[in-house]
């Protein structure tokens, strides 16, 4: 482990001349016995871009929620500079006070009212409610000026529900800028963006910082953090373990600081290709005009390979996944699974044919919260003779096999009888993995298998998927995370507006081309 930089010996850099805009001292927050933040000190200066790194549960969100008034700190102080630059204590527990003090936050899940236009979202709450109007002309002029200065372009006059995710995010940032913030907190801002959108966001952030805005950038994409930020603060287990300049840091070192141990490298060995396990010819799913429909897909996935499906979610991935899982039927075209035509909506037959499904939303589709770990573990095979006899569950056998899975997959839980909703996301996903992989499926549908998981759990999922590939399973990996796709896939196909591109060999594939294709350009015009 690398020794953290002592926070009380800040680096002597020329930036120190810039005025302090935010100062946290000894902030501690407890939820019952859990210490979410412990004695955190953090200084942010005008024009500085500070990265806040940490795994899930490290305390990033809690800390920012204290800043933004969702929580009140149990101990410690938060000081923020007023317009004249004098530091004053920030009253806790009020979003209004935080906004008034000049703190703006762009949440990972946008806080936009989708039935309102972009302009309406921006001015919402900026005018006392008893007023009859907004002073629309002046407000419009101000938004126009902000858009020009920051380079943030968005359509202000359609309901934001109809805008792309990137545009919605630009509205969110404009919303903060409209309130003349001095500190802008961006929570995982690039998680939902294409690489091009992420680049343009980085440029915007740099522009804004150049004008004196202090930016706190929460992310777990280490290469972004290193490219954009000048200082990196790492939280682990609620405490600050590092506070250092980004220059001279590298990804491996930051990852180890976050996790607190060495990250084992993923091993991708060449594997032998088997028979096709999934073949799609001219497949369309979903009625015309339906959201997230699949227009055309041609694909052949063979045993022993991983094909990654890149794309911003909502471009047809949902229909593709539902087709493979047997939850939707193809409107036209041929769909063959393990050599047999799959024409009907029939998830059980798919399961029996050897399709293992890791669903996108493990809370909604992957597990049943009120049922126990053991019950969730046999959810798909409850009818088989090892789980029931004469219609009665074989509880002892089910529990014994769940206990085995808990050991094999290192699932941290009170035991096989614990309700699964009590488990953390990573451990819940391990139960889903155990359920899927135990049946040695020939085709694995992995839809966003690591969404919301921390580095440790993500590494584990990746290792297991690669092991399944080595065993000869074909894996369809649908993900928005390009790092993940490039690390795991043998070939990558891009999905945009319902059209699936041909699968391209990853060796020699440029991430920028995939990014452009995600935005709707074709491979040829950008090659």
């Amino acid at each position, binding site marked *: 482990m690398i020794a953290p930089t002592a926070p009380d010996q800040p680096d002597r850099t020329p930036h120190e001349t810039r005025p302090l805009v935010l100062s946290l001292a000894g902030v501690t927050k407890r939820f019952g016995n859990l210490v979410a933040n412990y004695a955190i000190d953090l200084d942010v200066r005008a024009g500085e871009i500070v990265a806040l790194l940490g795994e899930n549960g490290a305390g990033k969100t809690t800390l920012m929620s204290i800043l*933004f008034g969702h929580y009140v700190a149990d101990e410690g102080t938060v000081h923020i500079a007023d317009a004249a630059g004098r530091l004053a204590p920030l009253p806790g527990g*009020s979003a*209004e006070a935080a906004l008034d003090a000049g703190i703006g936050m762009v*949440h990972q899940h946008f*806080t936009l*009212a989708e039935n*309102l236009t972009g302009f309406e979202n921006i001015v*919402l709450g900026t005018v006392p409610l008893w007023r*009859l109007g907004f002073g629309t002309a002046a407000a419009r002029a101000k938004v126009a000026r902000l858009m020009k200065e920051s380079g943030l372009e968005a359509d202000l006059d359609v309901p934001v529900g109809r805008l792309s995710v990137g545009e919605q995010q630009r509205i969110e940032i404009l919303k903060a800028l409209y309130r003349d913030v001095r500190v802008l907190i961006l929570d995982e801002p690039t998680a939902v963006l294409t690489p091009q959108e992420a680049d343009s966001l980085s440029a915007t952030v740099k522009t804004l910082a150049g004008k004196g805005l202090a930016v706190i950038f929460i992310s777990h994409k280490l290469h972004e953090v290193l490219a954009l930020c000048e200082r990196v603060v790492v939280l682990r287990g609620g405490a600050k373990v590092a506070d250092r300049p980004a220059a001279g840091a590298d990804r491996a070192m930051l990852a180890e600081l976050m996790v607190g141990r060495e990250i084992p490298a993923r091993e991708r060995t060449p594997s032998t290709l088997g028979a096709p396990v999934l073949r799609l010819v001219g497949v369309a799913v979903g009625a015309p005009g339906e959201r997230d429909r699949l227009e055309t897909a041609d694909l052949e996935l063979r045993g022993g390979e991983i094909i990654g499906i890149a794309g911003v979610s909502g471009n047809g991935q949902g229909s593709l996944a539902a087709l493979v899982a047997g939850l939707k039927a193809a409107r036209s075209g041929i769909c063959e699974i393990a050599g047999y035509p799959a024409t009907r909506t029939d998830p059980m037959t798919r399961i029996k044919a050897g399709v293992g499904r890791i669903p996108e939303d493990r809370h909604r589709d992957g597990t049943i919260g009120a049922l126990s770990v053991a019950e969730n573990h046999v959810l798909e095979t409850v009818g088989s003779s090892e789980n029931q006899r004469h219609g009665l569950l074989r509880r002892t056998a089910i529990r014994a096999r769940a206990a085995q899975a808990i050991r094999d997959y290192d699932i941290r839980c009170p035991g096989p009888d614990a309700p699964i909703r009590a488990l953390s996301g990573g451990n819940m996903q391990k139960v889903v993995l155990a359920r899927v992989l135990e049946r040695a499926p020939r085709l694995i549908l992995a839809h966003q298998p690591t969404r919301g998981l921390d580095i440790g759990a993500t590494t584990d999922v990746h290792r297991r998927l690669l092991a399944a590939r080595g065993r000869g399973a074909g894996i369809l990996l649908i993900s928005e995370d390009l790092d993940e796709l490039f690390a795991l896939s043998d070939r990558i196909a891009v999905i945009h507006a319902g059209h699936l591109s041909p699968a391209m060999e990853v060796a020699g594939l440029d991430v920028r081309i995939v990014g452009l294709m995600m935005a709707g350009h074709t491979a040829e015009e950008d090659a």
Partner: protein
Amino acid sequence: MWAALEILTQANFWAATIRIATPLIFGVLGALLCERAGVLNLGIEGIFVAGAMSGWLAVYLGLPLWGGVLVAALVGALFGLIHGVLTVPLGLSQHVTGIGVTLLATSVAYFGYRVAFPNVATPPRIEPFSPLDLPMLRDLPFVGPILGQQTAFTVLAFASVAVLALVLACTPLGLAIRAVGDNPEAVEAQGLSVVGLRIGAVMAGSALMALGGAFLTLSAFNAFYFGMINGRGWVCIALTVFASWRPGKALVGALLFGALDAYQLRLQTITGGAVPSQIFLMLPYLFSIAALVLVARRADYPRALMKPYFKGQR
């Protein structure tokens, strides 16, 4: 057959349409205001009863007619406060609470009536709103007789449509109400109070609902009877979906329902008992169901409708 069409030419029919629609206009406006803020208010049926009873009683006890209207609105707002406190900060089930408010408000109204008039067989009468007598409108052909039968209370209903539409579309308050019914986090993040906005909207909406009830006792009839609301509140809940939560469409829906009701009444007299009258009574409700089947599938519900919001929890 000709007689069935001739009904449409009678000024009397159109006047009845507006009269039947007026309480529904208030009710739908109230329901849509609550729902735009994210709160389903099934207390509407009981709030109608309470508004009808309290407005009428206030006038009977000596207040002027407009005083009765004000009392009804205040009583409605009070029941709205109960519903709002239970469903917004406490986050209780909006269905269960709403039914509870309906039972409570109905019972309180009936109880109050019995306490006030322990030994009365027929309810005492009041002098209701009299028809408007506008010199320039009176002499218009066709339209004159229709408008001549309406009271100032009906004018208030039509004015409410315009005011609510304007407030929702053009003012900071209306914007905040629309936002809080779609995404309360957005409202919270902009420094506004979700609880305050929602309770306020539910109170104002409930006051409108109570005006719908008061119209019946202060304008359409001149006394309070048990069972006089007769499901009008529930119709408003259905019409709210039909209206896609827009005041203008709410007016259209209420008038359409009023027209059907007025039409079936007249159709009954024409057929002269050849068809059971219950068939005709069903017509407006069949229309509501048919309209819901057609509209509700595509309905654009406020996204946060019936979803309790707790601060600091996402």
